[in-house]
């Protein structure tokens, strides 16, 4: 299972690595340091980081310099005779006090920066609730009645085995978080399942989203652009693929986006009123399945034995009475990893994925579930 294609290990790795180092050198991203970012806090953090770094460098030069000097000059092969001193209260006191003063020098700016960093409540212009869900984010604009789920883009999922040449591999999301520049945005973090952490380096926001807690943080983005990040707290199998995309836009563009988002929500609501054909439901269901269910229940519906149950042949899925199936998807199953999807997917999505699960993945129950059924089940 582990060594799927190792033919002649040593040589292949070596040759491969040399080749790739060479080709990648042209467009290499040998990034060495922390980003300065695009918020006042991220710049403060960067300066503090550099301050502590240079202090360490200076201490390092002194300590390693003294060591190197002894190694070069106080060696037996040069005829060095060992001295016998082994105690001096004075120097012990000096090298306790001097580091203490240096630490105070670090602690003072660090305290100021920490107080700024934690001041999320004062004068926030926009509040966005960020919900961590295995393995995606849900964003809710608290004052705007807008809410959507953001996943890793399908383009990355298609090339897991060989992403060569795919520049945006694991960077793009299907729906980025859109925010206006020069506004103080307050984030509220929460989780539906396990602990996640929402991190965008350029925004200098990293905060755990924890079930049962609401944490906050903030950012005022000063430059329009696309900023990317990802989950940084191990949250299970697909932790590496919980990506974050933030689009920072100007105020008018933001207003425009809000309007289009609201219009799309209205369109989706009316679509839920209609009767859908089986083909349409199946087609849409496949997309929804890939984005939401595949990670646990598998490409073929086989699940992961002992961890995640199979879809194929499942008693709930193949039961001609769909009510248990609808219930588990809409409300989740307490005490397990099965999430409640009523807050993540709309009626059409749930209806289509249920129809898909019943008529694909090796199942052929035949039932078609309409969005209206889901609406009533909520």
């Amino acid at each position: 299972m582990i060594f799927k294609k190792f033919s002649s290990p040593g040589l292949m790795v070596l040759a491969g690595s040399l080749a790739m180092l060479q080709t990648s050198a042209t467009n290499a991203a040998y990034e060495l340091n922390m980003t300065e970012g695009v918020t006042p806090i991220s710049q403060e953090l960067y300066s503090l980081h550099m301050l502590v770094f240079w202090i360490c460098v200076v201490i390092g030069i002194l300590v390693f310099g003294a060591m190197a000097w002894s190694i070069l000059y106080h060696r037996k092969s040069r005829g060095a005779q060992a001295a016998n001193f082994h105690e001096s209260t004075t120097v012990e006191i000096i090298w306790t006090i001097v580091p203490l003063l240096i630490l105070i020098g670090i602690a003072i700016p660090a305290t100021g920066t920490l107080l700024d960093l934690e001041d999320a409540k004062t004068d926030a212009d926009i509040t966005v609730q960020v919900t961590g869900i295995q393995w995606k984010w849900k964003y809710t604009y608290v004052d705007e009645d807008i809410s959507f789920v953001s996943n890793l883009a399908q383009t990355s999922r298609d090339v897991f085995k060989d992403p060569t040449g795919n520049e945006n591999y694991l960077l793009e999301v299907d729906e980025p978080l859109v925010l206006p520049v020069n506004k103080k945005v307050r984030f509220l973090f929460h989780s539906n399942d396990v602990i996640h952490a929402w991190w965008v380096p350029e925004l200098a926001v990293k905060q755990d989203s924890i079930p049962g807690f609401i944490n906050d943080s903030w950012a005022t983005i000063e430059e329009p652009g696309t900023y990317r990040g990802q989950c940084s707290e191990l949250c299970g199998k697909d932790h590496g693929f919980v990506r974050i995309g933030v689009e920072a836009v100007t105020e008018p563009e933001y207003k425009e986006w809000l309007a289009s988002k609201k219009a799309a929500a209205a369109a989706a609501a009316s679509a839920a009123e209609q009767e859908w054909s089986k083909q349409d439901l199946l087609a849409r269901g496949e997309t929804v399945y890939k984005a939401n269910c595949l990670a646990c229940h598998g490409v073929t519906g086989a699940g992961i034995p002992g961890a995640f149950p199979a879809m194929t042949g499942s008693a709930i899925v193949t039961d001609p009475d769909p009510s248990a199936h609808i219930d588990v998807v809409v409300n989740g199953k307490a005490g397990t990893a099965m999430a409640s999807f009523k807050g993540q997917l709309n009626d059409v999505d749930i209806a289509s994925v249920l129809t898909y699960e019943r008529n694909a993945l090796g199942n052929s129950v035949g039932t078609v579930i309409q969005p209206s059924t889901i609406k009533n089940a909520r």
Partner: protein
Amino acid sequence: MSSEITHDAAHDEHDHHGPAKGLMRWVTTTNHKDIGTLYLWLSFIMLLYGGSMAMIIRLELFQPGLQWVEPHFFNQMTTMHGLVMVFGAIMPAFVGLANWLVPMMIGAPDMALPRLNNWSFWLLPFAFGILASTTFMESGAPAFGWTFYAPLSTTYAPDSTDFFIFAVHLMGISSVMGSINIIATILNMRAPGMTLMKMPLFVWTWLITAYLLIAVMPVLAGAVTMMLTDRHFGTSFFDAAGGGDPVMFQHIFWFFGHPEVYIMILPAFGIISAIIPTFARKPLFGYSSMVYATASIAILSFMVWAHHMFTVGMPVAGELYFMYATILISIPTGVKVFNWVTTMWKGSMTFETPMLWALGFIVMFTIGGFSGLMLGVAPVDTQYHDTYFVVAHFHYVLVTGALYSIIAAFYYWVPKWTGHMYNETLGKIHFWWSTIAVNVLFFPQHFLGLAGMPRRIPDYSLQFAEFNMISSIGGFAFGLAQVFFLYIVIKTIRGGEKATDRVWEGATGLEFEQLPSPPPYHSFTEAPPVR
């Protein structure tokens, strides 16, 4: 002079109380040297086992994309690698060294509680057998990281988690019993004249470490027991839906976990404090301040745990306190480094293999200390937390720190233990090979972390490809170097140039001054004179 007397005593010992023959010698042994050997071999096997999982991790991270293993299996590897290295490789190695060395250093015939000693060792192979077996279970091994944060390790964990919990309990019992034994030995069995402030620093650091272990292993046991009842008996310690608190898990875990960090480094300080003076031919500078620094680090280690949790959303006052307390630890740690450097200053140094490893320790452990100071600065930890910068930091302190000290200890004391010198050329090759490889392995991880790569991910976007590939190459080279070390170990045990009783020109301490190489089965049947 006195070595002649001890030689005779040794002969008598062999006649009456030599080791039993065959396999049962090792199963039923109550001898501190035999048990020390068992611990060290277990630790080496675990190093290679944990190391092979690291190889799988580095193989998958060699280039972007998912080529070799599935993400679920990758998470099992990072989890098991951490658990095996911490509980299986580093901790047993130090206990093994304590078993071999403490009685010889304090002038005792054996450990105070020899049968307990046998049991505390023999729990471990079973504990790790149970832990390793989870990899072959249907759900796979635990996949929630060695820190096993709830609720990922409770509600969302694979079925094999219960085996993990039982294994952790066994390891904890073993550690607590081992610690009781070490404390009882040090406090009761010192030769007349061996006052506390005359003890070698290795004995001192182990005495303090043993207290840390007794204090925190029960906390870990409590954490896994709460996990167990949450999983099966309807409690909600860590389940917010039942009124529990997932963050409380982290507080409990790190109240164990931070002292645990010092459990893995304090004995290393003791080893380095023995080796540097020997090869500088000059007494250790600031012995008493070394003792006080060790004690300060141990006490502070109980008061800084939440610096592992700066992003969980603590109150600002809490974050400020934990930041101040954390960066304060750099003072006693700095004192130690300054003392070692001053010990070298105006010495008459030679650079045999143990000295090379000790010097490597000082330089690279200090680099790990610098990144530790940076991580302690709470606001900037926003950018460092849970990235490869952290991975680089703790591997500098644990691999080039703890592991380097263990390897240094091997080269330093193995001539005493076996009576054979190791091959100096091979030892030096081992050092330079490992040191170049380990820096190629871990130094670029600082850059990866700063540039934004989180830890515990099986795959990454393309901007991290170059440094990951370099790091993986270093990883494979470092792994191979430890297989080479296995060859050196076996070769040295089987034969080699005869070691003198003193072994090193500048060596001090009862084990070098009062015992032959190899020492008799029971070290001191009569208390040696202590200067």
